């Protein structure tokens, strides 16, 4: 499928337009859910870590340090991408599936358009750009959520939290999170595209393809999460 995508675009302007449309759909369209998840994710992480780190010899700032690393290394990229697999992945699979079943893809083929290049290419490219941005936002908001939750529950003050954030900070963790986000973005866009593009049948099959696409995407994300952690950490 990916091989078939690479051919000279029939009209660059139209491909660009489709790419921008997908950027808005994937990026702006998923922003709301990412905001909600990441803030609560950070808040809950702070509460749960403070619940477990009860020893008087551990400084409170350590809570923020653990929250930071947990969010950057795992929660922001993986949890956000699992949610995006549902939001973006099902949308891609059902959109392409509907286009296939209603012969819209055939109509494009008849016009002499490379449908893989025109329909799937911009989705993959937009995902590779927008999903890492969403994950960066999720990281910032997760940490901010943690800070606010810590302050609201009187667990640790904002100053203590900021101090913890600066403790033993490794820039490599950011690289690792972004690298993961690129890999996950690729999975989130390609797997549903494959299932959606190759749907045969009717509405029932579109639903099945959409569900299968999300399940396979989630499993692949978790598998790659483990593999990347084993290789890169």
């Amino acid at each position: 499928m990916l091989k078939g995508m690479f051919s000279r675009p029939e009209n660059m302007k139209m491909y660009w337009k489709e790419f921008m449309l997908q950027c808005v759909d994937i990026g702006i369209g998923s922003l709301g859910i990412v905001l909600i998840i990441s803030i609560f994710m950070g808040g809950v992480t702070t509460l749960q870590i403070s619940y477990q780190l009860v020893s008087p010899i551990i400084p409170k700032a350590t809570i923020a340090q653990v929250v930071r690393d947990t969010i950057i290394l795992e929660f922001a990229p993986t949890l956000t991408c699992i949610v995006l697999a549902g939001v973006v992945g099902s949308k891609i699979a059902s959109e392409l599936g509907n286009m296939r079943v209603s012969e819209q893809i055939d109509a494009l083929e008849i016009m002499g358009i490379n449908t893989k290049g025109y329909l799937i290419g911009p989705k993959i490219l937009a995902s590779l750009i927008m999903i890492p941005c969403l994950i960066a936002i999720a990281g910032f908001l997760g940490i901010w959520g943690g800070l606010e939750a810590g302050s609201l529950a009187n667990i640790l003050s904002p100053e203590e939290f900021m101090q913890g954030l600066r403790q033993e900070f490794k820039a490599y963790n950011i690289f690792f999170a972004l690298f993961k986000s690129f890999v996950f973005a690729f999975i989130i866009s390609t797997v549903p595209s494959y299932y959606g593009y190759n749907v045969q049948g009717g509405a029932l099959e579109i639903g099945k393809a959409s569900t299968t696409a999300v399940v396979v995407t989630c499993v692949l994300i978790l598998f790659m999460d483990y593999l990347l952690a084993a290789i890169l950490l």
Partner: protein
Amino acid sequence: MIELVNIKKGFGDKVILPEVSAKMETGKVNLIIGASGSGKTVMMKCMVGLMEVDSGKVLYEGKDFTGMEEKDRKEIRREIGMLFQGSALFDSMTVEQNVMFPLNMFGSGSLRDKKKRVMECLERVQLKDAARKFPAEISGGMKKRVGIARAIVLNPKYLFCDEPNSGLDPQTSLLIDKLIKDITKEFNITTVINTHDMNTVMESGDHIVYMYQGRKQWEGSNKDIIFSKDEKLNDFIFASDFLREAKEIRQMEMFQQKDWRDKLKKD
């Protein structure tokens, strides 16, 4: 002209088209008719390249479409317009944007020129007022007409219509038939229609290919059908008592015409 030379197509062990040859003539409305499962949709999909033939050739003006590289195929596809059974309009675009899509992708010229061309096509199918509507807001017949407008916007040399009358009332159906027939004559294009609508057969069939179990059973014009002695064709076309009676009346009418009387005597 489009020519099919011994095309074969099957899926696994099941052979759909055992070996079919036919000619689709320029300036005529060519119909492929047959019962459901007779292979007419597969035949049309093979003609436009949506399915690959197992063997045989599809020739467009003598050029072998089946053996062409994708780049050359695209050149021919740009001369093809197709109306799909379900219209296949893009849901997220308005009627105007749907018709303008091929122009934006392949056409040159300013936006004003493109809009002018779109309006010409929409006027041709009497849908100028629906330009701003989305496909979900228009009726099935209107969708078909938008499909026709989109198919002709780039002035194609070949027009394919897959069951253009399915799901339409008789009046709208006649309107679509007339539109396709008029466009064919006006622009002298090769039109191929896949149908089992008997009105279309009798009103528009300049050249008809009747498919039976994947084979070409009969070939002729709508006038030839009236006097055809092919049992399978007669069973298919004149399936009801009403249609059989209508055929006999038409036979008598045609027998009054001298040229037909002479032709029949000669046969």
